[in-house]
Each structure stands twice: as C-alpha cells, then as structure tokens.
C-alpha cells in the first residue's frame, strides 16, 4: 500500500513516518526533498501551480500508484472537488467523505446544521454578502462589532473585525480579495463578534459505522491577527461539566453530518463559560500533537484505520487526560512588527532542541532550507509535555532557549515571553491576550536588574574569551580586564578575571560568576551564572566589540570595549540616520498587489499607498505624513524584499 502525502507547509516530517508499513510518497513543489521513500514534484513554488493544482496531484497519484492520499492540513485538505476526483479514480481520501466536507466547509450551511443538531451557535449571524454596502447594512442589523470572513476559508484567513461602517467596507474589500486568492471563492460571512472570547476546540474522531468520540479540548486563545500562536491541552478554564457538554455537542454535530475521520469543532467560550459553535474543520489540525500527547492516541494512524473502514478502537470512557501539553508555533516572522510580519531567508544554521526529553518538533525544514514568500511562514510546531502544566511550560522555556534558528527573523522572543507572562501562567487569557498585554506592540523581554547583570557578565566573558584566544601567540595571559559594556543606553564598567572556564565579573560592586562548558564556536552557550543554569545564544560577535545575545528568548545588542576604546569613542562623530517619514519601505518580503498612487499625487497621512501580499496576507501600506508623491518604485505584480523602497514622498 502506498500513501500520497500532500504537504501542508512544504511538508511535514513527523507524520509520514507513521504510515508505518506503508511506503510513503510526498507531493512537493520544486524544492529539495530527502525524507520520503519516494517524492514527486508537482510544480513550481507558487501554491496555485503546485499544491493547489489538482491535475498535477492526480498525475502524481497515477505515477506512483498511490492507493490513498493524506491531504495534510491546508491546501486541498478541505476541498470537496478534490475528494470527489479521488473517489472517481478509486483512490481513498484519508479524511471525511465529500458530503461532510461540503456541509461543514460552507459557514452558513454548517451553522444551520449545527442549530438543528442542538449545538449552541452565535447569535445574529446572516448570509452571503454581495457588495460593500450590503455588508454595511448587515453589520448595522447585527450591531457592532462584527466579524467579516470568507465563507470558504478556515482558520483566521480572510477574517477581519469591523467596529464601524468605514471598517466594514474596508474589511469587505480585503476579505473578498483574500478569499478569492486563497480559496477561489469570494463569498463572505458577517456575524456578531463576541468580545473577549476564548478559542477552545474539541477534537472528534468518528468512524464509518456511526460511532464518534470526543478527545478533549485544545485551548487556542493566544492568537495574533486571528491566527494561533500558542496552544495547550487541556484548557485551564474548562470544568469537567463544560468539557462534557462541549464534547457531546461536538459529537452530536459529527453524527449529524455522518462524519468519519478526525475533525475539530471550534467554539468560542465567553467569560461565563457559555460556548458557541464557530466552525468545524474537516481535517487534521496543525495543533493536533497536543491532543495526541494527553490522550496517547496517534491521530494519523486512527485516520488511516478509519479510512480503511475499521471501527473505532476506543470507547469514550477510554479517553484520558494525562498530563499537560503545550505547542508553540515557531514562525519565520518579526514579532516586533504587529506581533509578527513574515520574514524570508535561508536557514544558515538550524538546530532543533530534540535532545531534551518530552520535546517534539514537527517541521518540514532543515539547515539550508529557504523560507520563501510562497508558503505559510511556519518553521515548526514545538510541543512540550509534562505531568503538570508548570512542568510543560518550564520544558517549553528550555526548548525555546535551546532552539537555534539563524538566517531568518523568528518569533521565539514573543513565544518565550508569552509562556512566562503572569497572566498566561495563571490561565487568564483570551483571544485579546496579545493586544491587551502589549498595547504598544511587543518590545522584547524587559530585563530586571539581576538579569541585566547576567547578560552583561556573559557578554564580558565572551569578549574576554575571544581576546584571550587572539593572544594565544603569547601563551595564556591571565589578568584583570577592565571593560566598558553598553546595553540599551546604559553604560557599565566591568572588571573581569578568569581562571580556566570560570569568569568572575564585577558589576556595580556585585560579583557575578560565569562558568560552563562552552567555546567560541558553539551555537548554544550553556552557562551557569551565580549557580543558576541558563542557555544563551551568541548571535553576533564582531572585532569592534558588538555582541548580540539571545537571552530569555529576546536578542539583545551589547557593545563591549576596553576602557581605553570606550573613552576614545566619545570623540567619534554621531551618524545621523536617514529620515524615514518620507520614504515608504516594504516591511516584509512579498508581492505588490496594487499601487494606488502615482508621482505628483497628494496623499494624506494614513492614506493607502499600496497593498503588499505576503504569505497569503494582504497588508495596506499607508503614508506616514501628508505630502506629495515624489516617485513610485514598484508596480502591481512586482516581488519586493524587506526594506525595499516602494514610494518616496516629498
């Protein structure tokens, strides 16, 4: 038996292994593949020409003689046409049948079915929207705030929230464009937006014989722009009664559509534990590993069994909650820009923290991989497991500290901050968590005085180690070092002495002991500071004393100079940075969808200048000041890199 695995983001390493005795075939666009038994190229990188190209996938199936297809998470996984074509060819689709995909894939129909199955639904939702004015009318009837999203899409793709008529029109325009480009279907849905909700979903598993189970919940409330960032199972918020009520409603919905295979029923839960049906995803979810961790079930294996027509192996009473699992989605994005704007690049160094126990990393990349503008910017799913939530979160801290990703900007600084934030640790979260906790945007880890000393001491130790190595010509010179270290805008005078691998750093009268088995070439710095174990990473070290350290997730820039160099530095001229208000640069790599100005136009502050699409998100670029357009450096269809000049104002 051969199975064809349609990748999600590029492809997924963990899952195909679980085809076990099956031989495993990948479909993939023109990238390098070396993990499957056999791999088939399905076209060039743009998804519309590869993963979304059904003809190419069908050819791959014929070519390899695959008898079954696992569609992965995205792309064609919820496409009923695809399932139909497979059925016509006699190939098993590892997933629900087309009827269920169709019924649950349509947001309006799915809610009608849910209502009929006695599942709680969100009040005031309405139908398909034809134009912007109709959108405004519907929004007015429901009452603000409203949520606008693509009928055909899942997750947060194409979803926008509007608080007034103007935002409704804008939301309509963006969402319909995104819906068209991502799903080839521009229908939209507008519904009442529940303020301050939690996003909690129930995993269900149903066979072809009318039996269905609920496999407990996943809490996915930590989101940015309606996309999940950190997930955990179980939820701190649910009591057994609410959990059972949600589970039973989820199973009742699955039964109502004669669902088979693994599926997820998403709910919004308000502060009073009222829950409302959101949608049902008729595929494996990205975050399924945390459910596997706490239930001990292998969901992919179960899906394959079900597709083969076997009955469920378990009864509802067999489904446990063992321990706690947390998943961090590691994205190639800059968390300092709107909690994450995509970045691209080549992974010059890449090392997963797999030597730590109870850590699972699902990724489709390796050192040397290119993160391109064509796919989701996800690097991996980092899952940690513990007997308790506290243990799982501590493990996640270690895993994030030990994760080496160089060459692309990544969101580990944000992930590392979220999981130690007091609100998160106490379970006080909602989908508003990020904007509420970081109202002015994410700024990285804020150092305490003690942490500051640890960071300074580490930088000083590194500097001294590098200096001493340069002096190997003279033999080892042990002596006292007088250093001046800059961090943020603070300047510190440090005294360092060394014996073997132990550095004693004196900072403002306090002594910090730095030791550990590390050297100047190692990507990770496992350091003991004043008896406490920390893992830091040195990201940069230059001859001019610049040192960048990743510490507690965040990367910090320091400058270490000898006292002499520091005192002479005061004579150095200040370099004036360029005035950026009159230049518009692309904040991320992507392609230009539309340019709405031409040279000579007058633009008002905040007016849209152009739209950049990256990783299937459209971003409106606006003028930073009221001015006349001096020159336009891009046109619709152009591919632009981060920092590329788009438009100059006078």
């Amino acid at each position, binding site marked *: 038996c051969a199975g064809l695995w349609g990748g999600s983001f590029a492809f997924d390493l963990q899952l195909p292994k679980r085809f076990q005795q099956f031989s495993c075939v990948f479909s993939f666009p023109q990238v*390098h593949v070396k993990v499957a038994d056999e791999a088939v190229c399905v076209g060039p990188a743009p998804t519309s020409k590869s993963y979304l190209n059904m003809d190419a996938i069908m050819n791959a199936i014929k070519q390899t003689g695959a008898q079954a297809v696992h569609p992965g998470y995205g792309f064609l996984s919820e496409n009923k046409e695809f399932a139909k074509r497979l059925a016509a060819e006699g190939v098993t689709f590892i997933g629900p049948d087309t009827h269920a995909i169709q019924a649950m894939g349509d947001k309006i129909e799915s809610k009608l079915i849910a209502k009929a199955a006695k599942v709680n639904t969100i009040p005031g939702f309405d139908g398909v929207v034809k134009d912007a004015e109709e959108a405004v009318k519907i929004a007015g009837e429901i009452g603000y705030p409203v949520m606008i999203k693509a009928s055909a899409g899942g997750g947060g793709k194409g979803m926008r929230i509007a608080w007034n008529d103007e935002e409704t029109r804008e939301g309509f325009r963006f969402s319909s464009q995104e819906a068209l480009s991502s799903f080839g279907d521009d229908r939209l849905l507008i519904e009442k937006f529940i303020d301050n909700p939690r996003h909690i979903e129930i995993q269900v598993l149903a066979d072809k014989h009318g039996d269905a189970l609920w496999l407990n919940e996943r809490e996915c409330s930590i989101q940015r722009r309606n996309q999940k960032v950190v997930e955990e199972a179980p939820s701190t918020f649910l009591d057994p009664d609410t959990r059972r009520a949600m589970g039973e409603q989820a199973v009742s919905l699955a039964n109502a559509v004669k669902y088979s295979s693994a599926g997820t029923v998403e709910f919004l839960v308000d502060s009073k534990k009222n829950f409302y049906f959101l949608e049902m995803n008729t595929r494996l979810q990205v975050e399924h590993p945390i459910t596997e961790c706490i239930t001990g079930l292998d969901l992919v294996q179960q899906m394959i069994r079900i597709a083969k027509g076997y009955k469920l192996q378990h009864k509802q009473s067999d489904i446990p909650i063992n321990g706690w699992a947390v998943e961090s989605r590691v994205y190639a994005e800059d968390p300092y820009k709107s909690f994450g704007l995509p970045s691209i690049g080549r992974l010059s160094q890449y090392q997963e923290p797999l030597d730590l126990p109870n850590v699972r990393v699902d990724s489709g990349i*390796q050192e040397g991989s290119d993160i391109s503008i064509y796919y989701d910017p996800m690097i991996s799913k980092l899952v940690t497991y513990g007997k308790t939530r506290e243990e799982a979160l501590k493990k996640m801290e270690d895993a994030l500290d030990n994760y080496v990703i160089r060459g692309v900007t990544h969101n580990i600084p944000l992930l590392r901050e979220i999981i130690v934030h007091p609100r998160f640790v106490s379970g006080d979260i909602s989908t508003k968590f990020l904007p509420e906790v970081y109202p002015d945007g994410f700024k990285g880890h804020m150092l305490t005085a003690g942490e500051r000393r640890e960071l300074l001491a580490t930088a000083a130790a590194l500097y001294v180690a590098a200096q001493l190595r340069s002096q190997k010509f003279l033999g080892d010179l042990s002596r006292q070092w007088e250093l001046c270290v800059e961090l943020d805008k603070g300047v510190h005078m440090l005294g360092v002495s060394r014996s073997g691998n132990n550095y004693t750093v004196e900072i403002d009268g306090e002594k910090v002991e730095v030791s550990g088995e590390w050297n100047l070439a190692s990507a990770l710095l496992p350091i003991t500071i004043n008896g406490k174990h920390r893992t830091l990473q040195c990201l940069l070290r230059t001859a001019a004393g610049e040192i960048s350290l990743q510490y507690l997730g965040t990367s910090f820039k320091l400058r270490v*100079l000898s006292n002499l160099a520091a005192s002479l530095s005061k004579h150095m001229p200040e370099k004036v940075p360029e005035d950026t208000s009159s230049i518009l640069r692309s904040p991320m790599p992507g392609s230009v969808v539309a340019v709405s100005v031409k040279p000579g136009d007058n633009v008002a502050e905040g007016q849209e200048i152009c739209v950049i699409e990256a990783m299937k998100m459209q971003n409106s670029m606006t003028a930073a000041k009221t001015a006349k357009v001096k020159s336009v450096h891009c046109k619709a269809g152009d591919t632009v890199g981060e920092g590329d000049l788009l438009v100059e104002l006078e």
Partner: protein
Amino acid sequence: SKKILRQIPYGAAAGAITQAKGLQNARCYSVNHLSVQERIEKKRKAALTGGGQLRIAAQHKRGKLTARERLELLLDPDSFVEYDMFVEHRCSDFGMEADHNKYPGDSVVTGQGRINGRLVYVFSQDFTVFGGSLSGAHAQKVCKVMDQAMMVGAPVIGLNDSGGARIQEGVESLAGYADIFLRNVMASGVVPQISLIMGPCAGGAVYSPALTDFTFMVKDTSYLFITGPDVVKSVTNEDVTQEELGGAKTHTTVSGVAHRAFENDVDALLNLRDFFNFLPLSNKDPAPVTECHDPRDRPVPGLDTIVPFESTKAYDMLDIVHGVLDEREFFEIMPNYAKNIVVGFARMNGRTVGIVGNQPKVASGCLDVNSSVKGARFVRFCDAFNIPIITFVDVPGFLPGTAQEYGGIIRHGAKLLYAFAEATVPKITVITRKAYGGAYDVMSSKHLRGDVNYAWPSAEVAVMGAKGAVQIIFRGKENQAEAEAEYVEKFANPFPAAVRGFVDDIIQPSTTRKRLCRDLEVLASKKQTNPWKKHANIPL
C-alpha cells in the same frame, strides 16, 4: 607626472594654514637655563602633546583621534616603543627655523609595538603638527621603521592623516615621498604593508597607500585624491565635493582604490587588530594558526541544497563560504566593489586561508575587468605571504560586449589567469556549478597547478551553456531541442571533467569543510618553485 607634482601643494596649503593659526600659540624655550635632564623631559612632554591642546581639541571636534591615541588603541597596552621622538624638521626658510615652529618628533609618530603579542612597525601621521604635512624629517622617520621592519621581518602599518607635502621644504619634501615609495616597493612581497587612511591624503602622498597591500578608510573623515575639488573645478570645471571625489564610499564602491571602509576611528582600529591576526609577519613566516573550536569535520547540511535546480537561478556564494569556514567568520576584502567576485580572509581549522569565489548573485558571477583585477591582486597577496587559496567556482564565462573589450578585458582577465598560474601556495578548488569556457581554465583549474580540485554533483564543466553550444554544433539543423538535451546529458554534469582527472573527486557538498581541512593539513608542507627569473612580467 607634471600634473601630479603641481598638485602636491594642495594638501600642503591646508597644512600651512593650520600652521599660521598656530603661531599665536607660540612657546619659547630658554634652553640655556635648563639642565639636559630637564630639557629631555620638556621635549618628551612637548612630543606627547604634538601640536598642542588647541589643535588636539580641534582634531577631536572633527571626530578624529590624535596620532598617539590611535596607536594606543591599535597596539597592545604598554607595547609601543617609540623611535625618533626628538627628531625635528630642518627647514630654515620662511621663518620655520624659529623655536616655536619646532615640534619634537615633527608631524609623525613612529616605532614598533605588538598586536596580540605579534610584532608590527607603525607610523601615525600627526595632523596637529603642520597638518601632518610631510617634511624631510618626517619621511626619514617613516623610512627608518620601514627599513627595520624589512630587516626584522614584521608588517608595517601606516595611519595616514596628512595635508600633503611640507611646502616650505620644497624638493626636500618631494624627495621624502620618493624615499618612502621606494621602500614601499622594496618591502612589497617581503612584509605585509597596510595603510589606514584616517584623514586627508592627497597629491603625491596617495601613492604610498596605493603601493601597500591593503588600503582601508574611515567613513566621512578620510579622503584620497590626486587633486582636490578646487583644482578639479579650475581645470575641468567639474563641481564635486571631497566626499564624492575621494571619500570612502567612492573608493570602496567605484574606484576600487580602497579595500574596505569602517565607521569611525575606533571601529577601524579595532577591526585592523582583528585583520592583523590573519596575516603572517613576513614572506618567511607561514600562515598563522590559531586555536580552533569549530570541529574540522563538521558537516554542513545546508550546502546539499544550496545550488538551485535551475542553472539560471542565482544563489549567494557567501552562504557557501560562511558555511565551510571556522565559526562563519570571513574578513571580506572589497565587499562593495566588483561584487561578482568574492575575496577575503578566513580560517580553516585555525589556519589562515584566502577565499576566492564567483558570486552568481551579481552579474551571474561572470568575470569582467574589475572582478579580474580584484581577484588577481588578492591571489598574488596570498601567494606572496604563504596563505593557501581556496577557490569556489560558479562562472558562466567572461562578460561579453564592447564595454569590456574596449576596456581591455583580454589583458585584465589575463592578470587573474597569471596570478593563479604562478601561485605556488596550496591551491584547492571547488566547482559548485558552472565552469564554462576560458573562465573555467582561469579559476584555479587543475591545468594551472591546482593541488586539489573538487566538483560538486551540480558541477557543469563545459565550453559553454547547452543552448549556445547546440546552436553552433547543429547550426541550421532541426531537432535543436533534442540536441540540447543530448548536450545537457553529456556535459551538464561533473563526469566529463572527472573521467579525465581534471577534478580529483566529486564530493557531497555537506562534506566540503571536512575535505578542505584535511587537504590543507596535507598541503601545509607543499614546496613548489617557479623557474628563476629577475621578475615575472604580469600583463599590467
């Protein structure tokens, strides 16, 4: 040469103006009333303050350090040994003989010191004394350290900050320049010579840096030109600023005169210390080896996927270079000039190596006039100073066109060919993708005495790309597409070169570091000599 001579006074004029201002700051030595010991102390003190506190403050205000501060930062603490602190200029015209116009040490600080414990000879021009202008005495001091550096076998670092010739001294000053030039030439290939331009350097003075091995500049505060903006205006009516004419940006991106630029004095000097670690002390000294923590057999998995499937698609050669080097540390030379070739210093298992690589990201990595000259000079430096050369090849050929032919690509391209061919240091070559036409021969091929030549599986060694080749071989015939496929099958792979022994092995890219480190160890004892000659005749 007439033009050059006429221009030397440009900088000197600036010096004279500074000097005139200094007259008010006059001091008077009543030598007869002081004992010798006191006179020594007084002279030493005067030498240490150069042109005086006012001019030092002015120097700082320009964002520049003084000559002595620079040496203090460049050299290991307490290692500087100064020569000729008591030397004074000998000019007696234009009132120069007056005591207040005599500065002990004159307008340059010279001596020797250590950088990370290794010996170096230095001179640092003092802009606070007569604008750093070059007197006979100044030149004599510089010549003294250069002579000794050559005898001892240690590099010379010059920190240039000078208005130009000392006009008051006339031909004495010109003679001084020539004395230095001669020593630059004699020392060339004997000890490494480095110039760091930290202020003006104009007129004839520019030829000393030009003769040294490396010229570095400080951004915004240093200038190099034959004639300044005023003379340019009067002769050619061109309006140009100092910065545009001879600033760091111009020389590191347009002219190729300077090899690298740094943010400011401190940045430049700290980087120079780092750079010095790569260099042997002389041509008798082997390439230095430092302690290395990066495993010599470290696999580099990213290299297996770096070369794209489509041979027309670009990738960044620096990704390969960084991947194989110790700690990804690469001191790139001329990073912003002729970017279609990458050259610079690095270490492999602690040993200094010179890296040359075609850069497919820029102009497809072709060879043209500028990249050939850039590569050739670098290769010759490495060969002169026993530094092994590792060459990464992905070259589609020489750049065609009238601009290149008229520019003399034939004789400039020949320089790179010449440099690789004559080099007797260990030469290791890795063909990552294309090695087409004459450019294949040039890029340290087996035929030019490459010691170890590798091909990656993605290598294509051929006279030209498939399309062009088929158009010639099968001119006028049908079935061009079929012929093209046949050509690709035959030549777009490493086998034609491998079966003939023109590459020694086809290696898995991820093992490149391990292979290179092993070969370098073996080749460390390589001995090869060229036939006796007075000197070779490189096509200049």
